[in-house]
Every structure is written in structure tokens, then in C-alpha cells.
């Protein structure tokens, strides 16, 4: 093939705007409007790559997204490198450098900070969405606009140079999903943006995606110089490029008539038209040392009736271009995404949308609907047998899928292996799994399989079409959801202080919470031990703003809480607080927290940080769907209030200093009560509750004052050396007291009884989940129960998640029966040793017994203990016990 630029012509290029790019070290010139493929052809570059497995030279095969051969690695003008793009769709004006690919692409190894390409995403609701701006698509759009001048009609086409008014060009539909949802991708939608993913919700969708030409399969049909016939005409007409000098046309339909005329007009000598409908066939090709097409072998039915028979050589014709047309496949992928069904239409020998089904929202028009113009009477020629004896090996160069190097021989093997479903054939042969999605190979494969199996093509069908229609980069799919915007980040009002004071953060859901506050030279463990010691010996403070908070109002709140908590709340006095445990109907622990009675008809509920939204949903579900008669209104006030926990024997002094008008004496403000309080001059609430076993308060003020409250507590506590602590110290302090954390000690399979919290489960009333606790399974004596665990070596902190086995377990015989696992594990300043919480089968019966914890490199011995390891008599919650 000796391509060249014609002296004039080319409707899609601007000869006044020359462009150039580097292709494998050679400067390739072209014009604005060229694709990389048209520029390569214009420069006589005919071998553009080598095939993926067989390493055979390949050339440009098509002029569109169906390209299976000319896949290139592109460095865009922005500097970004992208692999495996069809050269037939890459505009020259956007590229700096193009490399061909030996089969597969490679992602650019990105240095940190160099991956700067900006991709984004955008939503666009519209009334009518027309995909494809050909004649049919433009007509559909125009009709829609006429019918409803107020309607937003979005007409898109993947071709950056598509004709027509009001066309969104360079925008490719990727898929159609439920309820008019369409995704599309657009290159360079804005100056700073490489690509945009569109989320389009359309009232009505018109598919006008046209049809794609397909080849006829014959021996050595993959040489550079073999091209789809329509593509050759496109190169001449649109790009002013003559793809070859001596052409043979191999066809089974009338669409090649126009191609012949176009090529002749461009000065290509069309030396033969091999029309399969007359019985003429191409049985093979010849090539030069580089593999390029030099000639064609033909058997003719007319004049030489014995041609092609054994021992008789076929006729040979010299040519550098072989143009093939085996018919046209309507582009039905998008239709099929929307669960539209297909039927085989003998009239055009292709699968067409079966429009009988209920698809009110989606229409398909024009060639995509099977109205392929100029086809004439198509002949049913799909494949030409090898010239010699039709052994298996004789089919080994009949390439069906050029992109996957799959041949008729591969197909025969698949069918021979008993794979009769076209879905299985696809997966066995990989036909149709390349980046072109089998656009040129899919239907041909079905037809060949049908012939081999002796069935109808329509009965064989085609493999399921799935989005996306064209490859999309991960960067494009991620859009702006990366780096700092990867996921919403939630912070508390005190966050600036935490940051300024060196907090190490951990993610709790979307929240950033201080994990610990290391001082100079401190390790994590050092910091946590210091923070815990401060809470147990003096005073410490924690940002507890993230706790979920729900305001409950109405005369029936007490009765409602009795149903949602396992324990009783209707009896709670105004001014008091109570710990509550919540189950789902299955009886498993769902959440816990302290709920306070603000007034007869008003409660303030707290939830765990991670469950705040889920608990509100749960309350609304029962209120709205089961108990609409209850007069209760629930409102999230999580972020109305900033919360600082002040913890430790000196916490009363700190709160007294902050709220001079508040009587903090134990008599006036006892454990498990709350008071309105003017805190550092601002009205808020003080709760005397504790998650550490120490004397402790939680101070609430409106969120605006959160940072100032934090700073005020810090200042008021300075004389006592008040110590900010993070979530890790909080976890240690509560674990020393055996308090479970929902989601750490529990996993949706744990009942209150398993946690040893039967004391919080009322036997006098019904509540959500109560019946489940009576189920046989909930009563099993070997259920896993929460216990303490003390490693024999007090320096060993067991990894959380460690499995526990019996002391006499034979670790060589797998599976080793498991007794349970470690749920929490820490070093403890207060205990002067390591400890853990664990869920162990029949654990409470095993207190005092030894278990084994097999680690990767050793087996650790530990003794089961009560889950409350520190201050089991609760002597510290009113302050330092008097001796």
C-alpha cells in the first residue's frame, strides 16, 4: 500500500493549518482535521503496528472507532500519555507524539505530581437525547425541537467534525442504563480539562448511531493494505488521502459501487472487483518481506469453472490495496444496553433492533435500525475456505478478530470443545474482547459458528453488549474524585487547633478525628499511655463533636424509646441521662449511647459516630412505617452542638472554673444527669456521663463556639496540666472498663447477652429485637461472649483480629477449631500491662482458663478474664476515691 496526500480535496481537513507529530522518531505532517491514521496514510506509512500475539504486521483497517489494528500510544498536547487509542479517532492537532504498540499498551509510570491532567464530570438533564448526528439523527433532533420548542434537545456525535447545527461534537455515548440515564465522554470540553464524563438523564433517547462495515474472512486477510471498503472512500473524501495505487475490491453488496467510483476519481487504479455474489472469491493474499500486501489470489466462478479445485492454481493479481465489504452491521450496542432485543434480518444479513418490545423511552432510527442504504441484494458470503485441503491448520490465518489475533481455527477449536453458546465462544476465543468490542468481528463470528454448527445465525445470536462502548481511562472515571476531593472530608470546629498542635488523625467514616497528640520525640504508644495516664490521674479532654445527636420531641417519645431501646426510658426523670442499647429486629446489637431527658416531651439522644445517620433512618423507619400513631418528631442535631469531653479526677475543678454559676457538687450534679450551663459565658449543656469510668463531663455548646470552647477548656485546665487525647486513648480507657464499641466488639451477630449486658435488657416490656433473644440460636451456650484476655507475657499486645484456639489444639491439623477472636487489644498504663477484649465461645464459663493465640511467628498464651479489668466497683466515677 502506498498511500499519499491528494493535491486537493478533503472535506474534513484545513490545508491552511499544517500540523506535525512524532511517530516512532519520524516527523509526520498533516493538517488540522486529520486523524493520526489519515496522516500516517498520507505519509505512506502503512505498517502501523504488530499484532498482539502473532506479531504480524498490521496496517490501518478502518476510519473509525471500529479499528482493530492501528492502536497507538499517544502523548497528548497537554503532556499526558494515554495507551491503546485507535489512531483512526485521534485528532492530530491534539497530539505531540505517537508510538505504535507491540500488542498492548502501557500506562505511563507517573512520578508523583506529574499526573496533572484534569478530568471532570458533569450532570445534564434534558428532555430529548439524540445519539449520532448523521442524517437520521439530525432529522430526529429537528423534529423534537419543532414538536416542543421549549424542550432541551441534546444532539451528540463522537466525531469532532460532525456536520450540522446544534451538535455537541466529540462526545461519545458510553452506555444507556435504567430510566433514561446515559453516560458519555467528551474530550477537551474546556481549556483546563482533558476530558469530561457526562451523566445525562433524558426523558427520551433517540439512537442514530449508524452502521459499521464488516469484512469477509479469507486466508491472510490481515496484511497491511487490507482495508474496509468504506474506510478507503472516507480517506479520499474527508482527508484527501489516496490509500493505495492499485486496488482490488472484494464485496458481497452494492455499497462498494460508490467506493469504486470515489477511488477511481482519486487516481487509484481499481484493477479488479471480486464480487462474491457472482461466485468470485479471494482465497489468499501475498506480501513482501515486511508483510505488506503485494497481490491477491482469486478464484472465479465465471469463465474458469474449475478454478480453485485441487491442483489448479488460482488467478493472481498484483495490488497494494484490497478493499473488503461483507455488509454493514447496525450499531446496536446502545440499544442492547437498554435491554433492547435483536433479531437477524435476512434482508441486510445483520442483527437489527427488534422494536416490538416495550421501549417507550428509547427509539432507534436510520441505519442503526437496519435501514442501510445502497446495500442492494447482499450475498450471504461470510468466509472463504482455504484454497487447499480444509485442514484445521489451513484456517490458521483466517483472521476473524484482528485485535485479538483470533482465527477461524480458534473458532473451530472452541466449537470442537463443545462450546455452543456464543457467550462461551467469545470467552474461549476472546473474539470481541478487544478495545473495538468486536465491532467488525462479532456478527461474522456468529455467522461462522452458525455455519459450523449447522444452525441459523439468528438462533446463535451475538454476545451481550455491555458498556462502555469505547475505552475510558480510570482518570476519567474518577473525574474530580481524587486527592483531597476523593471523598467528602468532615471536620469538627476544633480541627484547626488539632492540626496546629500536631494531632495524628484517623478516618472514622468521613470524619477526621485526632487519633493521638504526640509530643516531641514520642511514639504512638508513648503518647497514648501519657494521654490515658492523664485521664486516670488528673484531667484530660477530647473532642467528641462527632457523636451523633438526635433531638426527639413529642408526648410519646418516652414510649417510643422504650420500644427502640432494650432498656426503659419512659421512667427517666427530666435532668437525667441513661445509657441505652439498641437492637435491630434480629436481636443483634445495632447501636448504643446516652440519652437524656430535656423535658417531659423532649429527649436528646446520642449515637455512635459512625451510626448517626443509620440510627436516624432506623427511628424514622419504625415511626413512619410501624407506629405512625406515636407523636414523635426526630431531628438530627449532630452538628448543632460541639462537644468536649472533660475526663479525670480533676475534671470537676475544670468545669467549676468554666461555669461558675453551675453547682458542680456531687449532690447538685450527680452522675448520669445533665444541666443547662453558662460555659465561659455561652449558654450550653453539661452532661455528667463517662466513657472511661472516671469522673467526667461532656460540655455542649452551639457548633460556632466549638473551637472557643475547646480553647477555654484548655485554658481552664492548664493549672492541672489538662491533656488533650485522641480516639486511641479513648478506646483504651473504655476497654479497661469493658465497655464495648459498636462495630469493634460487635459485627451484627452479637446480642446484648453476648456482651454481658443482660442488665441493660428489660424483661418487663417489648422492644425491637426482643423476640429474637428467645430464639434457640440466641440461647446456645457456645455463643461467643465478650471477655477480657490477659496475655501471660504482659508485654505482648496481641494484634486485633487474632484467632484464639484451645490450649490442647493441634495446630498442625487444619482447620484448627476456633474458640473466638480478639476484638480490641492495647497496652494499659492503669493496669501496667497489656490486655485485650475478645469474643470467645462460652467465654464467661472459661474465665481463668488459658487459650492460645497463634501468630505468624509464634504462639502466645493468654488467660481469659472478666471483661471489666479496671475499677470493677465503679469507685472512680465521682472522683478520686477517698482512702
Amino acid at each position, binding site marked *: 500500500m502506498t498511500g499519499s496526500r491528494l493535491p486537493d480535496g478533503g472535506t474534513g481537513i484545513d490545508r491552511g493549518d499544517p500540523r506535525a507529530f512524532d511517530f516512532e522518531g519520524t516527523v509526520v505532517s498533516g493538517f488540522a482535521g486529520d486523524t493520526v491514521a489519515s496522516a500516517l496514510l498520507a505519509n505512506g506509512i502503512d505498517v502501523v503496528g504488530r499484532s498482539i500475539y502473532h506479531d504480524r504486521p498490521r496496517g490501518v483497517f478502518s476510519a473509525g472507532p471500529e479499528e482493530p489494528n492501528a492502536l497507538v500510544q499517544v502523548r497528548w498536547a497537554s503532556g499526558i500519555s494515554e495507551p491503546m487509542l485507535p489512531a483512526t479517532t485521534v485528532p492530530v492537532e491534539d497530539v505531540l507524539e505517537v508510538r505504535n504498540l507491540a500488542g498492548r499498551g502501557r500506562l505511563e509510570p507517573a512520578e508523583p505530581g506529574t499526573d496533572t491532567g*484534569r478530568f*471532570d*464530570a*458533569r*450532570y*445534564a*438533564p434534558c428532555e430529548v437525547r439524540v445519539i449520532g448526528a448523521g442524517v437520521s439523527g439530525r432529522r430526529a433532533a429537528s423534529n423534537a425541537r419543532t414538536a416542543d420548542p421549549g424542550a*432541551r434537545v441534546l444532539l451528540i456525535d463522537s466525531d469532532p467534525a460532525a456536520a450540522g447545527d446544534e451538535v455537541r461534537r466529540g462526545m461519545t455515548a458510553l452506555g444507556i442504563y435504567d430510566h433514561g440515564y446515559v453516560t458519555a465522554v467528551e474530550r477537551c*470540553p*474546556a*481549556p*483546563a*480539562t482533558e476530558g*469530561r464524563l457526562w*451523566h445525562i*438523564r433524558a426523558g427520551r433517547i433517540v439512537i442514530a448511531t449508524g452502521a459499521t462495515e464488516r469484512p469477509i474472512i479469507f486466508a491472510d486477510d490481515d496484511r497491511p493494505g487490507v482495508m474496509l471498503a468504506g474506510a478507503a472512500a472516507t480517506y479520499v473524501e474527508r482527508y484527501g488521502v489516496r490509500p493505495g495505487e492499485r486496488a482490488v475490491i472484494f464485496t458481497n453488496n452494492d455499497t462498494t459501487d460508490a467506493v469504486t467510483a470515489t477511488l477511481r476519481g482519486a487516481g487509484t487504479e481499481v484493477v479488479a472487483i471480486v464480487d462474491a455474489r457472482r461466485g468470485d472469491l479471494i482465497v489468499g493474499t501475498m506480501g513482501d518481506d515486511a508483510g505488506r500486501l503485494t497481490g491477491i489470489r482469486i478464484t472465479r466462478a465465471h469463465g474458469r469453472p474449475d478454478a480453485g479445485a485441487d491442483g489448479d492454481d488460482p488467478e493472481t493479481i498484483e495490488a497494494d490495496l484490497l478493499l473488503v465489504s461483507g455488509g454493514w452491521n447496525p450499531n446496536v450496542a446502545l440499544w442492547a444496553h437498554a435491554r433492547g432485543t435483536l433479531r437477524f434480518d435476512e434482508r441486510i444479513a445483520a442483527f437489527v433492533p427488534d422494536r416490538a418490545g416495550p421501549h417507550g423511552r428509547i427509539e432507534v432510527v436510520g441505519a442503526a435500525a437496519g435501514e442501510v442504504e445502497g446495500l442492494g441484494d447482499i450475498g450471504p458470503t461470510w468466509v472463504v475456505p482455504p484454497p487447499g485441503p480444509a485442514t484445521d491448520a489451513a484456517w490458521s490465518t483466517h483472521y476473524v478478530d484482528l485485535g485479538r489475533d483470533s482465527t477461524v481455527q480458534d473458532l473451530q477449536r472452541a466449537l470442537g470443545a463443545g462450546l455452543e453458546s456464543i457467550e462461551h465462544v467469545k470467552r474461549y476465543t476472546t473474539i470481541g474482547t478487544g478495545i473495538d468490542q468486536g465491532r467488525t468481528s462479532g456478527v461474522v463470528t456468529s455467522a461462522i459458528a452458525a455455519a459450523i454448527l449447522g444452525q441459523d445465525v439468528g438462533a446463535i445470536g451475538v454476545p451481550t453488549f455491555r458498556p462502555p462502548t469505547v475505552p475510558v481511562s480510570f482518570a476519567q472515571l474518577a473525574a*474530580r474524585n481524587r486527592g*483531597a*476531593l476523593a*471523598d*467528602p*472530608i*468532615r*471536620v*469538627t*470546629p476544633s480541627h484547626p487547633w488539632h492540626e496546629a498542635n500536631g494531632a495524628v488523625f484517623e478516618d472514622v467514616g468521613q*470524619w477526621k478525628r485526632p487519633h493521638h497528640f504526640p509530643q516531641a520525640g514520642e511514639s504512638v504508644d508513648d503518647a497514648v499511655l501519657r494521654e490515658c495516664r492523664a485521664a486516670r490521674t488528673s484531667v484530660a479532654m477530647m473532642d467528641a463533636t*462527632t457523636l451523633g445527636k438526635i*433531638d426527639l*420531641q*413529642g*408526648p410519646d417519645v418516652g414510649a417510643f424509646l422504650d420500644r427502640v431501646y432494650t432498656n426503659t426510658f419512659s421512667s427517666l426523670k427530666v435532668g437525667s441521662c441513661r445509657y441505652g442499647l439498641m437492637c435491630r429486629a434480629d436481636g443483634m446489637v445495632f447501636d448504643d449511647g446516652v440519652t437524656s431527658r430535656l423535658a417531659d416531651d423532649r429527649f436528646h439522644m446520642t449515637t455512635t459516630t459512625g451510626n448517626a445517620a443509620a440510627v436516624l433512618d432506623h427511628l424514622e423507619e419504625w415511626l413512619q412505617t410501624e407506629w405512625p400513631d406515636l*407523636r414523635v*418528631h426526630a*431531628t*438530627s*442535631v*449532630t*452538628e*448543632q*452542638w460541639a462537644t468536649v469531653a472533660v475526663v479525670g479526677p480533676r475534671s470537676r475543678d475544670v468545669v467549676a472554673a468554666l461555669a461558675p454559676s453551675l453547682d458542680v457538687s456531687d449532690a447538685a450534679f450527680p452522675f448520669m444527669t445533665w444541666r443547662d450551663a*453558662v*460555659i*465561659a*459565658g*455561652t*449558654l450550653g449543656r453539661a452532661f455528667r456521663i463517662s466513657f472511661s469510668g472516671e469522673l467526667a463531663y461532656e460540655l455542649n*455548646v*452551639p*457548633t*460556632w*463556639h*466549638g*473551637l*472557643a*470552647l475547646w480553647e*477555654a477548656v484548655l485554658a481552664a485546665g492548664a493549672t492541672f496540666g489538662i491533656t488533650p487525647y485522641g480516639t486511641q486513648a479513648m478506646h483504651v480507657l473504655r476497654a479497661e472498663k469493658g465497655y464495648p464499641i459498636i462495630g469493634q466488639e460487635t459485627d451484627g451477630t452479637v446480642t446484648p447477652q453476648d456482651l454481658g449486658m443482660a442488665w441493660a435488657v428489660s424483661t418487663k416490656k417489648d422492644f425491637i429485637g426482643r423476640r429474637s433473644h428467645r430464639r434457640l440460636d440466641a440461647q446456645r451456650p457456645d455463643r461467643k461472649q465478650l471477655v477480657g484476655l490477659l496475655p501471660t507475657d504482659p508485654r505482648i499486645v496481641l494484634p486485633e483480629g487474632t484467632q484464639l484456639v484451645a490450649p490442647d489444639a493441634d495446630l498442625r491439623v487444619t482447620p484448627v477449631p476456633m474458640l473466638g477472636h480478639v476484638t480490641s487489644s492495647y497496652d494499659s498504663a492503669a493496669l501496667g500491662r497489656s490486655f485485650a477484649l475478645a469474643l470467645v465461645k462460652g467465654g464467661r464459663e472459661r474465665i481463668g482458663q488459658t487459650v492460645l493465640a497463634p501468630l505468624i511467628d509464634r504462639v502466645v498464651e493468654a488467660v481469659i478474664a472478666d471483661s471489666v479489668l479496671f475499677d470493677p466497683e465503679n469507685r472512680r466515677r465521682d472522683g478520686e476515691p477517698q482512702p
Partner: protein
Amino acid sequence: MTDSGLRARSPLEGATLAIDSTSTLGIRELPFLVQVGLRADPADEPLMSRLTTVLGARPPTDPNTTSISEDGTNQVLWLGPDEWLVLGEPGTAGALESKLRSALDAAAGAVVDLSANRTAISVSGPRARESLAFGCAIDLEPPAFGPGRCAQTLLARANVIIVPVGPADEPAFRILVRPSFAGYLATWLVDAAVGLD
């Protein structure tokens, strides 16, 4: 908002919201906007008229609409069939809460101060609608969405209430967002503006 006592700091105090001086998009915080949550039975006509009297506006019963008091100081947003959010000028929370509570009288319902529970971000200018469309799936264009409407939805995956306030050709939106998300959302809004063409 108190004159004495702990200093009030709005969630976006000190945040960088400016894009550039030539921008066709304005992003700024409207700090300390008063918001009071109201729950009431819309079928309780005496209650609804008491509420209308104290608010100077009838709480709207059409979904996703708003009403504005005669003196223009309060806007009532529909949040649910028996739920509204009353917006007011900074500093008026206590007065608003107590007059709503008195209107509620003995009827079942709820009044709760939510002023600090969300902050407001104003996004305005000819490109405002387009910039929100980078992260919001609902139809933001009039007539589906214009002054007098509101929507609770997701913007850049954050829960928000969007209240359009400007005319169609000069759109402006108030975005009510939880303070914990405000910094993230402001970063997202400033970033989205880069993608405007």
C-alpha cells in the same frame, strides 16, 4: 451568636473562596444564618394559621417550595410533608424559636434551633448553575428550579439544601450544608470553577 462569652466562628471563616476578580462566579459564606426546624401537622388548620400569623408566611405544603414572610425576614423551606426549615437574620434564633413554640401551643410538633447545624454558602453569577451541575444531579434550570423552590439533595456527595434566589438570567443559590462538610464543599466549589469553559 453572643456578644460576650465564647467567640463564634463560622465554619468557613478564613477559608479561601475567591476564584479571581474577573470570575463570573461568586462564592461566599453567609455566616450565622438563623435556621429553626419546625414539625407540625399540615392538616391541623388552626395550628397552620397560628404558624402563619407568627411567621407572616404560611408554611408551604407543595414539596420543594418556599414561602417568604411579608416583611421579608423569614423564608420557610419545605423539607417534608410535616417538616420545614425557617430561615432568619443572624441573631434572631431565640425570638423565632419562642414564637414558633408558642404557636405550636399544645399541638404535637417540634421546634428546634438548627442555626449552627448548617452554614450557608452563596454561589452566584452567570456561571453559578453550570458550576453546581458538576456535582448535582437534579435539574437546576428554571422552570423546574427557580426562586420560590428549594431542594434537599446531594452536591458533590454532600447532603445539602439548595435554595435558588436569583432571577433566571442571573442565578444565585444558597447552599445550606453541615459545618463539618463546609470546608470540603468550598474546596470542591472552587475546584469546579476551574472546569468552566
